[in-house]
């Protein structure tokens, strides 16, 4: 299969509104071994996640450490193999992909990592870092590679590009490093960008700049973006939809504004309650928070996984049966028995 790697601005605009990515009842379980070969259970990192993403659509996935969002993201990136369920990209099923199909798939999904300095090889110049994906994906002509590098540097506003190409990552500021990470993610012309906490390691005054850049890239290239974060305050300005993840499952799905105004799932309510805005009155109160910690994914609680920490749990129901997704209002999904 010849690898067809289009230039970044050739995204087919006619497909806006169509589904690009479909995650179908995805389960990603990691096997735990005892003494190297005895079976000791599974870490059920992603335990039944389904959603659709259209071309050009941006969605945030919000959740704490250990909720499975990194495992979900790595599966979408083609790094993990689904245990059950499937991922369908442009109509093609990941479960039916062979090695070269997977290689094509990975060239279609860009990845923006969290720690810009950690994501860039310290011994490679900016030019080598950007060339590498092109070389791996068969762009043989040096002049074509050079042209694409120039183009992508313009897109991330690192101009004049020649000022930066010979530099090593440690010579750049955090914001500049993150721009290179984004450039590398964009250089193969992906249709989907997965950004994992892209600004959490950057200073406050630079965060908005980088998020705006991602937003602009999304609009110009009709890119679908999955924005993974635990910081709810940035989500408002840079995504249309939000999925809230807890213990391997999606507990709430909604458009952003309605969720911020009126969160449905008790876990979402807790996340919003815990997010601070700059306000001196914060120092005068203690915040009300759900007790305990997110559960182990090896032995998650029975029924609704949030029930041990939930102040609104319904005795006799929540700890026994897993809630399905209810739709108490149009386009608002909550997996919670309160909305039966």
């Amino acid at each position, binding site marked *: 299969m010849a690898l067809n790697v289009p230039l970044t601005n050739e995204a087919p605009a006619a497909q806006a509104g169509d589904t690009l990515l479909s995650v179908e009842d995805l389960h990603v379980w990691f096997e735990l071994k005892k003494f190297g070969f005895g079976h000791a259970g599974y870490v059920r990192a992603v335990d039944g996640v389904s959603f659709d993403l259209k071309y050009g659509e941006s969605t945030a996935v919000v959740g*704490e450490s250990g909720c499975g969002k990194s495992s979900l993201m790595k599966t979408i990136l083609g790094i993990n193999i689904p245990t059950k369920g499937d991922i369908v990209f442009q109509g093609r099923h990941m479960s039916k992909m062979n090695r070269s199909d997977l290689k094509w798939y990975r060239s279609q999904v860009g990845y923006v990592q969290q720690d810009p300095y950690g994501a860039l090889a310290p011994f490679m110049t900016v030019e080598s870092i950007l060339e590498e994906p092109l070389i791996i994906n068969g762009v043989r002509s040096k002049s074509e590679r050079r042209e694409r590098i120039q183009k992508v540097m313009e897109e991330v506003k690192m101009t004049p590009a020649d000022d930066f190409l010979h530099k090593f990552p440690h010579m750049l500021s955090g914001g500049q490093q993150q721009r290179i990470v984004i450039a590398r993610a964009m250089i193969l012309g992906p249709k989907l960008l997965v950004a994992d906490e892209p600004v959490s390691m950057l200073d406050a005054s630079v965060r908005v700049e980088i998020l705006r850049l991602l937003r602009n890239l999304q609009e110009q290239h009709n890119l679908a973006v999955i924005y993974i974060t635990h910081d709810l305050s940035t989500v408002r300005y840079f995504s249309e939809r939000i999925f809230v993840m807890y213990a391997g499952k999606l507990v709430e799905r909604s458009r952003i504004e309605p969720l911020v105004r009126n969160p449905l799932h008790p876990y979402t309510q807790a996340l919003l309650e815990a997010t601070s805005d700059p306000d*001196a009155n914060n120092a005068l109160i203690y915040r009300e928070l759900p007790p305990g910690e997110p559960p182990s994914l090896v032995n998650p609680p029975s029924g609704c996984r949030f029930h041990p920490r939930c102040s609104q749990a319904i005795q006799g129901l929540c700890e026994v049966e897993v809630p399905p997704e209810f739709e108490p209002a149009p386009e608002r999904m909550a997996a919670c028995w309160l909305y039966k």
Partner: protein
Amino acid sequence: MADKKLLIIKDLVLYFRTEKGPVRAVDKVNFELGFKEAVVVLGESGCGKTSLAKAILRLLPRNIDSYSGQIILDGQDTMALSDEEYRQQIRWVRMSLVPQAAMNSLNPVLRVGDQVAEPMMVHHGVRKEEALQQAKKMFQHVGVPADFLTRYAFELSGGMRQRVAIAMSLVTAPSLIVLDEPTSALDVLTQANIFNVLKRIKKELEISFILITHDIATSSELADRVAVMYAGQIIESSDAMQFFNEPLHPYSQMLMNSVPRLRGDVEPIFITGQPPSLLNPPTGCRFADRCPKRFGKCDQEPPIFDKQDRSVKCWLYE
């Protein structure tokens, strides 16, 4: 007597020696901290705030160009002490530190209870059993269950490890704890939990805090006073209520406006450009080249102007 301060810092200077010349990380900083008070030092990467923490706790590397000024702790000038006296009397006795990424610097081969007990044994010559009892009490203060005393760091979540690091800083009953970015790598629920812990400690154990962070939103959870640091200098100092309602310095204002807010509808801005190098800072106001309100006088370094309870290093407030 109502005005007696726990910590008074006067003209604190810390320059690092490098091949290219001195790096002026802390450039004549003046600072005050009362009893049971929390002051937030707010600033972004490269402003010198971690160097300020090191200067206060005298945790200095070998390449020092200048280190001078006064650090008066409860009436005593600690600068006058020798390094050995400082180690015995001040560091981890009356002042302690929760460094950046403390949760990642816990000793992986020691049980966490032993680590928290260690300062008591080293600095106060206390026997291990008694030190472990103290550690257990500290665990209670920070909300870590007592049976975690025998666990290793890898068995704990990030939030738990950070609480252990805070317990370690509490164990010798200091009057002052410096926290450097205590929650930057943590989830929002864990962050809120840690701040609840710090609020309780401030009230119940009567300890003062210097909280160093770039996160304006979470800084408001603990701050009684705010000091904004830029390019090695404190450019604004104010009580928290007034600061969050109306920051004075243009940099503080832009910083405040760059915070995305969950509740509120204004889209955040960003500040173009970068802070100046601390190797050769400009001679005039160090923020001038990025300041939307700059005018002619900004070519000269502004002094600090006092406006009632607040001070600003900006010619606009002459």
